[in-house]
């Protein structure tokens, strides 16, 4: 028997407590805390002491702090109900600043030196909370009252009612600053995943581990053992805690067993995929150096054993939410595991034999048991005797009907079988109303639990293959059955994975009785009887829902918000269902349950994102000239995953337009070089290479000779343009196709689809060479002169030998293999030179050197875009998935005599409607005006309306060649309307100007520059 000294009050504010002495409710000995390691912490600015091994909740209770928070709606004082992750009440803000974590359950927050916690949802303080006046209006604030009110006047909803409601709602305050900690992710694979390291889980892991299977054992607690740490039990003649420690030691010695404490298995996904979150650094003030705060495990398991245990059920009676009212199992946890007396005078309200276990534990720890109230009409004599032996009053067939106390429990009101009422002083009430197996995880795959009338609880229904629930999680509540079902499941899981295993013998355990008659609510209670503590859902709200027709469990949940708080109804759901069953006169089994959804307990969003945040949200692809571009101070732009140089400002160029104009002018007058490596490049070889190109491209290729390239347009099967590019014929049966930067991956996938699925008989070999080749466009009148400085002598690239659209293998720089294509996006004499990517940097520098005598400039994506608009080439803004080849002026080039993807669907009536908007050019009537892409076209004088809409401007640029803005756009019957004027209407940018329709080719319409 421990001797204990109890202190009355918490330590005064600011004073440094002599840690152990300040903990007035700490037993002198016992518990699994490390009394040699005292810790200081603060709650609402007050300093307290605790020990290593405490949770915040156990340490608060040790210091006599019972009032921990305020409830959601009524701002009622709330304390600590549980000792685990199911806690609905004791939610605090943990840490501060950018690390502030609202709604943190004090019952699972491990104590560390310097821990800071604050209560939430109260103002100005936890003890004096102004909004507790809400409790007075509780009769108005019944379930769903807001659906019936706040409707008049309608304008006041957003202005007044909603802001008030929003401010009052929510519990804690989230950190506003970016999360300073990092998160890690890891994949793990195993034969047998064991979820929960209580007696059943340990037995399962031992059996599977001994068979040689790869086992992962996860437990949300930092210490393995489950209820063996909380109840004084015996296994094979030793204490349960010792047995658990031995089991852990043996598991730790097995090389194929991985034990993950502080790890919550939060979700079950298809085909043996599981999500688990490991709290690597949450038990410390800061995560350890070089370690993440948390690590998300994605576990793939062949077999899974659910041994997550069970959650005790509260009773529903008036004032059952008063601080000091706790679950009986939690009371025993605080006593036995933490060496804390949750109260000096404890009353026990039970509906089964299990609650009586609390009597001896309280008494053994030095507490006074005031009374045991059992709602059943008969009680085993030995239990009664044991209670009476410690001086407890025993009330059979009685109920707790109410509680008294200001900010914490001072007394309970009890009615006995004869209806006589009495008040019993106590500062802690332990409630035992049976246990619910944790069926959450097995419900994640849409398997509904089933009602088990023998234990009055939902148990797992049919589980997916490879998954089994054992111990309390499977409805086997006795310790012996936990060990037995766990051991058997472990052995069977291992043998299902091909390991020879034997079902272990179940060790002997001390006797226990679990007789139980659940009590869904106390029939004669006073005041608000809470079902869902956190969301302030009372029994009367369930009645109201019933009255108003919200009887289906999902409707009950949604109308009352029962089970929708941060605990997802772990302690409340069944009471709600039980009461609804009573009201509708149905058995609970027919009422059913709502669907449990992942995660089992809330998981930090940052953990799901892991490394992928900030600049690492998505990969960044760099072009081969990137280092040079950076040296030159290029301005980069995100293009899909690529980072491309947009333009290259010189020191005196402060305006981007000035730079781009210079780049364009230099290309048009001299020469420029642009990195176009981002294009997709697909190598196509084989006897049927031409055949597949013919089928995927809408224009004909049969006549393409070796050594020539051709523009290519690809349609989707629905007839719209998929992409455009070029196809170059390098050999009789060797082609290289380019795709646009944005569509490179899509086109490759499309080609693979055509080859593997549509036409598998074709003899074709395709592979992406996008990463192999750096590709540079060299454009401008001096492009050939520039190339002569890098292409090795012996390759004739004269206009005669290497005309427009020629292509050839060459070498550059003295023997580096390269490919040269005479193709042009700018309308200038232009080439694309491809060199192996490793030589990309050197080749780029060599081009710049070779071109310096010819006035070369590097140009970026902006100048590239200006020049393509000047030439009327459609690009991403026009090929946006909504346009046909005809729409963008390519209708004439489509093949007539071959079948190809998209051939038939492009002929649908609406797609050949002459009224469809067609690509044309635009220029401002007042040449000084700027054009904007996205403007809509209207007839001059027409009032803006959808009916008046004639099309839209798709691309614009300032043309330095012409000295004014130009645009491309799609407009109804555009090709017939050159020279006419329309409005370019752009109200979102206050734009409304007149523009003139013109040819989309603004520069060199006769293509004289291209072929010289």
């Amino acid at each position, binding site marked *: 028997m421990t001797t204990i000294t109890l202190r009355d009050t918490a330590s005064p504010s600011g004073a440094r407590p002599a840690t152990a002495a300040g903990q007035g409710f700490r037993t002198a000995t016992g518990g699994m805390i490390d009394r040699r390691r005292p810790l200081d912490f603060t709650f609402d600015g007050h300093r307290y002491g605790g020990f290593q091994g405490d949770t915040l909740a156990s340490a608060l209770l040790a210091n006599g702090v019972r009032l921990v928070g305020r409830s*959601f709606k009524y701002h009622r004082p709330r304390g600590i109900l549980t000792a685990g992750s199911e806690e609905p009440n004791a939610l605090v803000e943990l840490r501060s600043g950018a690390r*502030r*974590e*609202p*709604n943190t359950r004090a019952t699972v927050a491990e104590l560390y030196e310097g821990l800071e916690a604050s209560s939430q949802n109260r103002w100005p303080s936890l003890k004096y909370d102004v909004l507790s006046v809400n409790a007075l209006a509780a*009769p*108005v604030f*019944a379930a769903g*009252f*807001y*659906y*019936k*009110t706040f*409707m008049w006047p309608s304008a006041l*909803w*957003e202005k007044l009612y909603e802001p008030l409601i*929003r401010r009052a*709602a*929510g519990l*804690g305050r*989230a*950190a506003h600053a*970016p*999360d300073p*900690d990092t998160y890690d992710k890891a994949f793990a694979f195993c034969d047998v995943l064991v979820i929960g390291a209580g007696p059943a889980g340990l037995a399962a892991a031992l059996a599977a581990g001994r068979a040689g299977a790869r086992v992962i054992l996860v437990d949300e607690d930092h210490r393995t053992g489950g209820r063996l740490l909380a109840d004084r039990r015996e296994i094979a003649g030793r204490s349960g805690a010792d047995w658990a420690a031995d089991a852990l030691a043996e598991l730790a010695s097995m090389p194929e067993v991985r034990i993950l404490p502080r790890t919550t298995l939060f979700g079950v996904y298809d085909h043996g*995929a599981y*999500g688990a979150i490991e709290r690597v650094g949450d038990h410390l003030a800061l995560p350890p150096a070089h370690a993440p705060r948390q690590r998300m495990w994605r576990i793939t398991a062949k077999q899974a054993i659910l041994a997550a245990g069970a959650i005790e059920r509260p009773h529903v009676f008036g004032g059952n939410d008063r601080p000091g009212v706790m679950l009986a199992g939690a009371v025993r946890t605080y006593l036995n595991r933490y060496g804390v007396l949750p109260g000096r005078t404890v009353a026990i309200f039970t509906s089964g034999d299990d609650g009586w276990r609390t009597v001896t534990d309280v008494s053994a720890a030095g507490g006074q048991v005031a009374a045991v109230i059992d709602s059943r009409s008969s009680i085993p004599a030995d239990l009664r005797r044991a209670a009476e032996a410690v001086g407890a009053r025993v009330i059979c067939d009685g109920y707790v009907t109410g509680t008294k106390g200001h900010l914490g429990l001072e007394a309970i009101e009890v009615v006995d079988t004869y209806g006589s009422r009495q008040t019993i002083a106590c500062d802690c009430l332990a409630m035992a109303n049976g246990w619910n197996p944790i069926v959450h995880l097995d419900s*994640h795959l849409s398997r509904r639990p089933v009602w088990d009338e023998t234990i009055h609880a939902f148990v797992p229904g049919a589980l997916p293959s490879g998954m089994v629930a054992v111990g309390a999680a499977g409805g086997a509540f006795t310790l012996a059955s936990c060990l037995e079902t766990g051991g058997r499941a472990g052995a069977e899981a291992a043998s299902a994975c091909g390991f020879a295993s034997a079902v272990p013998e179940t060790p002997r355990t001390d006797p226990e009785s679990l007789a139980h008659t659940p009590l869904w609510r106390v029939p004669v209670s006073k005041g608000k009887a809470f079902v869902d503590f956190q969301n302030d859902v009372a029994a*009367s709200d369930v009645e*109201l829902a019933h*009255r108003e027709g919200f009887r*289906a469990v999902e*409707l009950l949940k949604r*109308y009352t918000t029962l089970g929708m708080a*941060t605990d997802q109804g772990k302690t409340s759901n069944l009471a709600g269902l039980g009461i609804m069953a009573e009201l509708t006169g149905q058995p609970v089994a027919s009422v059913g349950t709502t669907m449990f959804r*992942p*995660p089992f307990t*809330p998981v*930090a969003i*940052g953990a*799901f*994102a892991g490394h*992928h*945040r*900030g600049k690492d*949200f*998505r990969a960044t692809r760099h072009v081969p000239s990137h280092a040079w571009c950076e040296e030159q101070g290029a301005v980069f732009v995100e293009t899909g995953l690529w980072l491309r140089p947009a333009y290259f400002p010189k020191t005196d160029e402060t305006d981007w337009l000035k730079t781009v104009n210079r780049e364009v002018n230099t290309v048009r007058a001299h020469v420029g070089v642009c990195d176009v490596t981002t294009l997709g490049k697909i190598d196509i070889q084989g006897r049927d290479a031409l055949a597949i190109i013919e089928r995927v491209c809408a224009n004909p290729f049969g006549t393409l000779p070796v050594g020539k390239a051709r523009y290519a347009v690809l349609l*989707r*099967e*629905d*007839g719209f343009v998929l992409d455009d590019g070029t196809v170059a014929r390098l050999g009789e049966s060797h082609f290289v196709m380019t795709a646009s930067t944005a569509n490179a991956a899509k086109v490759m996938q499309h080609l693979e689809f055509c080859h593997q699925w549509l036409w598998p008989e074709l003899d074709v070999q395709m592979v992406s060479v996008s990463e192999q080749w750096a590709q540079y466009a060299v454009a401008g009148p001096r492009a050939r002169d520039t190339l002569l400085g890098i292409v090795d002598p012996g390759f004739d690239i004269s206009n005669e030998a290497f005309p427009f659209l020629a292509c050839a293998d060459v070498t550059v720089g003295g023997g580096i293999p390269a490919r040269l294509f005479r193709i042009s996006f700018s309308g200038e004499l232009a080439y694309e030179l491809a060199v192996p990517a490793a030589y990309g940097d050197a080749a780029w520098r060599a081009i710049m050197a070779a071109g310096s005598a010819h006035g070369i400039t590097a140009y970026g994506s902006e100048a590239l875009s200006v020049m393509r608009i000047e030439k009327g080439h459609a690009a991403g*803004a026009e090929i946006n*998935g909504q346009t046909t080849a005809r729409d963008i002026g390519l209708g004439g080039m489509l093949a007539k005599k071959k079948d190809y993807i998209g051939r038939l669907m492009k002929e*649908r*009536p*609406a797609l050949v409607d002459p009224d469809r908007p067609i690509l044309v050019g635009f220029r401002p009537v007042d040449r000084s005006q700027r054009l904007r*892409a*996205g403007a809509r076209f*209207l007839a001059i004088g027409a009032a803006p309306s959808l009916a008046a809409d004639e099309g839209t401007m798709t691309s614009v640029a300032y043309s330095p060649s012409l000295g004014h803005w130009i645009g491309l756009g799609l407009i109804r019957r555009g090709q017939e309307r050159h020279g006419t004027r329309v409005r370019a209407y752009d109200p*979102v940018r206050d734009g409304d100007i007149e523009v003139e329709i013109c040819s989309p080719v603004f520069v060199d319409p006769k293509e004289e520059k291209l072929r010289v």
Partner: protein
Amino acid sequence: MRYSLLSVMGQALRGQRDWKPQWRDATPKAEYDAVIVGGGGHGLATAYYLAKEHGITNVAVLEKSHVGSGNVGRNTTIVRSNYGLAGNIPFYERSMKLWEGLEQDINYNAMVSQRGVLNLYHSDAQRDAYARRGNAMRMAGIDAELLDREGVRGMVPFIDFDNARFPVKGGLLQRRGGTVRHDAVAWGYARAASDRGVDIVQNCAVTGIRRENGRVVGVETSRGFIRAKKVALSVAGSTSLLASMADLRLPIESHVLQAFVSEGVKPLIDTVMTFGAGHFYVSQSDKGGLVFGGDIDGYNSYAQRGNLATIEDVMEGGMALWPGLGRLRLLRHWGGIMDMSMDGSPIIDRTPIDGLYLNAGWCYGGFKATPAAGFCFAHLIARDTSHEDAAAYRLDRFATGHLIDEKGMGAQPNLH
């Protein structure tokens, strides 16, 4: 009993004892003028407007489970009318206008909250695409504003402007957009329809569509045959299953879309925001939870749940946009089944079978459409001709080429 603050306070004195069921849990009659299959938001709204606008009250809504058990209770509650194509614009604006007057119309507070919908852009091309859309909206008389970076910063200063992989350059804002308390929409329409005489029949699964001489004559159900002059399907997610009972194949696939809610916290964000460089959209419920979502999982599914690949993708988008979310915890995620149509737009039309009407293909935009879908579907059922605002939602548009493809993704449902 009419709902008002007064009636609630009056009931407070009486322990809230006099409230009646919000809708009658009807037993099906042998015959109706019209049977609406599906007691979700759309079906209930259709029944309400059939009664209110067309005086047709001999109507049953057949629901296999309970009222609002489908997507109306599983979505991320966003309402908006920021569409860019002529086929969509008038319809969604009709819906927005109906939302704006909904509470007074049905005497039920569905908490229509016009807190704004902000679509972020991250490139010049995206800005221009949004301008194109915003301009179309403005031409239709719908509010739209194109914000620059500073305009966005003024609204949501906490998102990542400085270290982003895809920097925020601005946004398209529809101030009239916002959120609506989703369940309340179903309940409010159920109550209002029931008050007008519509039979709401729960736990009544349709198992067959009976036809005689090429015309629908009623439906087989788990509660027996119910004769009907007109049968209207409003069962997004399960449309193909019901249509197959009438031997129809449709341009629709069923896909799972996941949705997410965080723990409740004090107000953080007072608008609806969408990321333009990843799949992520978020708002905060009046209860305090951040409600968010992303892309569909991408495979055909009738299971109301998804998988981790999509979950991670959504969270990455969230963290990339809003680094302060890191320590906020995900409370719950779930899935709903979407009718993904082949061009990403819905179908409200007659079918080749006389007397069989179809409201389907809502992809993941059905919630915001609830009032207008009910309004226009009721019009179609009552008058056998499309309402002008839904005239583009024809079933034959895939054959004629009059597609309404806002994203330009073509005939691949999982890309819309």
